[in-house]
């Protein structure tokens, strides 16, 4: 897992692909260059001793070998000191320069140019980036042009002309180059395929990890957003709670005020109900007296009724008597009428009798006067009797009226007695109710006191809860900030991957 950790460490690097095994490649390349140097030394020695080549050639070869070895050593040194970029660039450009120079001096303008052109480019393409290949190609071209210009102007001359170089050597160089290329390519491709496989694994792992990360990120994001929402809600809720608690506190104080008022009212009611109970008791006492009075009144009415009936009967008897008197008076009237008639007739007779009847006429006149007086007296008596009868009639009527009124009075006093009974019942009920009310109000008073205390507790709790809610709101605000920050962080992840 070293690589994974290394990769993990290099996640932020921009040139991931070209750098995955550069140090190893450089090490390989350096070894290959050492190998080339050795092979070339062997070839040079063979050439010199077997083929009997001239020393300039051998010198050139030696320079090349030394250059290659130097480059390889430098490269290895670079690798050891972990200066990969520098090392690879130095290796490549040094290698290219060596090859180009060697190629020129070994072949001149007519030497094997194509391998010189192809080799570095391919190597660069294999070992480095496309940019490096282009850069190498340009550099090689510049070298070649420079050498061409210099050779044409005669400033420099190749060590070997192509024509001087036997085809075998030419062939050998080519083969050596191809072999080197093949080695490089093999190494490169092996390491590349391994690297690729590893990379694939790593990529898969990375992908998996990425997915996990993504999921986690998403979860985080979701959680973050939920958290922020929840935090916001919580903040809102706690704010509401805080305001609610404040309101509750004020409401509780109002309620406790009201209940205190209620308590005082209950006290008043209790006092009033005591008063009512006293009044009802008083009423009951008065009513019992009143009842006695009513009973007395009823008895008195009965007595009055009897008296009135008595009086009425007596007055009626009197009326009958007066009628009898009237009949007698009628008789007297008739008699005096008759007497008057007789006296008149006597007077008439006396008048007819002339002188003889004069004395008789006097008597007749006396009788007539008597009759007249009797008539007048009878008339007077009749008037008196009429008055008396009227009076007795009125008295009878009055007595009847009185009897009726007495009956009504009796009925009324009986009703009054009944009403008194009802009132007594109601007063008793009132007294009872008042007692109940005073009991109930006392209970209510104690209950309201309890309620006031409870309300005070509630108010305290509300005040506390308001403070708590305020704290919660602050915490929620903090949480909201954290959530928003988290949100920002988690949202920036998917963009980079």
């Amino acid at each position, binding site marked *: 897992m070293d690589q994974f950790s290394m990769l993990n460490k290099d996640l932020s690097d921009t040139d991931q692909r070209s750098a995955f095994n550069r140090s190893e490649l450089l090490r390989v390349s350096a070894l290959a260059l050492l190998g080339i140097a050795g092979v070339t030394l062997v070839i040079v020695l063979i050439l010199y001793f077997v083929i009997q080549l001239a020393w300039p050639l051998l010198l050139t070869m030696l320079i090349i070998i030394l250059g290659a070895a130097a480059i390889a050593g430098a490269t290895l040194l670079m690798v050891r000191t972990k200066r990969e970029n520098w090392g690879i660039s130095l290796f490549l450009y040094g290698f290219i320069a060596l090859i180009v120079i060697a190629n020129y001096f070994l072949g001149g303008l007519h030497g094997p140019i194509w391998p010189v052109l192809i080799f570095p480019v391919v190597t660069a393409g294999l070992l480095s980036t496309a940019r490096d290949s282009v850069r190498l190609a340009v550099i090689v071209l510049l070298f070649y042009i420079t050498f061409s210009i210099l050779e044409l102007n005669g400033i420099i001359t190749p060590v070997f002309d192509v024509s001087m170089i036997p085809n075998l050597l030419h062939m050998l160089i080519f083969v050596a180059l191809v072999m080197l290329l093949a080695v490089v390519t093999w190494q490169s491709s092996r390491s590349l395929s391994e690297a690729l496989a590893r990379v694939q694994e790593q990529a898969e792992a990375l992908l998996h990890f990425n997915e996990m990360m993504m999921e986690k990120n998403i979860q985080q994001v979701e959680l973050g957003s939920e958290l922020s929402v929840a935090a916001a809600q919580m903040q809102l809720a706690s704010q509401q709670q805080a305001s609610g608690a404040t309101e509750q506190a004020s409401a509780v104080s109002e309620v406790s005020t009201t209940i205190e008022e209620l308590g005082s009212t209950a006290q008043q009611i209790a006092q009033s109900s005591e008063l009512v109970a006293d009044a009802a008791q008083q009423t009951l006492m008065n009513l019992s007296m009143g009842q006695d009075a009513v009973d007395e009144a009823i008895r008195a009415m009965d007595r009055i009724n009897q008296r009135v009936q008595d009086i009425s009967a007596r007055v009626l008897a009197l009326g009958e008597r007066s009628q009898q008197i009237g009949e007698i008076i009628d008789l007297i*009237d*008739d008699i005096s*009428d*008759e007497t008057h*008639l007789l006296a*008149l*007739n006597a*007077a*008439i007779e006396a*008048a*007819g009798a002339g002188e003889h009847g004069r004395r008789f006429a006097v008597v007749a006149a006396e009788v*007539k006067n008597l009759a007249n007086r009797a008539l007048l007296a009878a008339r007077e008596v009749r008037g008196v009797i009429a008055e008396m009868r009227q009076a007795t009639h009125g008295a009878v009527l009055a007595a009847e009226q009185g009897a009726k009124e007495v009956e009504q009075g009796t009925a009324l006093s009986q009703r009054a007695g009944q009403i008194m009974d009802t009132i007594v019942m109601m007063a008793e009920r009132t007294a009872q109710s008042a007692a109940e009310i005073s009991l109930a109000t006392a209970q209510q008073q104690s209950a309201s006191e309890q309620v006031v205390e409870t309300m005070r507790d509630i108010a305290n709790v509300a005040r506390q809860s308001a403070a708590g809610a305020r704290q919660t709101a602050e915490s929620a605000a903090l949480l909201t900030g954290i959530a928003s920050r988290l949100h920002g962080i988690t949202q920036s992840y998917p963009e980079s991957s």
Partner: protein
Amino acid sequence: MSVAVSESNTHQLAGTWLLMRLSTELYALPGPAVRELIRYRAPVPVPGAPPSLPGLINQRGAILTVVNMHVLLGLEQTVPSRTSRYVYVHHEETDLALIADSVIDLIDIAADQVQALPTSLDPVRAQLLEAVVHHEDQIVALLDLDALLRVLREAL
């Protein structure tokens, strides 16, 4: 028929008169003509007789022709009462029973009391009257029996 009361007439009219009430008015009959006062009783009606002669009564054997003075004088008819009387008058051989609502008394009328009848009096009534007198602040009409008989024979 104008009634002029002459000096001799007033002298003639002075004397005893029977004062009676007919309806609401006071009338007087000459005392010498009055025979008796009789308590009223229902007369025996005679078929075909005029309203002024409602019937007959028998007073101790004397057959009296009842005279309704109200009809003759044009007075309002009255229902007979306890005070109603017949005044038995004998005049010119004729016995009459005049119905009076009540008979008051025999009164003496002096000549100077007699006054002429008011000219505004109804002629039907006036023909039966001699004169008027004031008696105890009341006007009393004096009935003329001759005129009464004459009227009874002629009409009503």
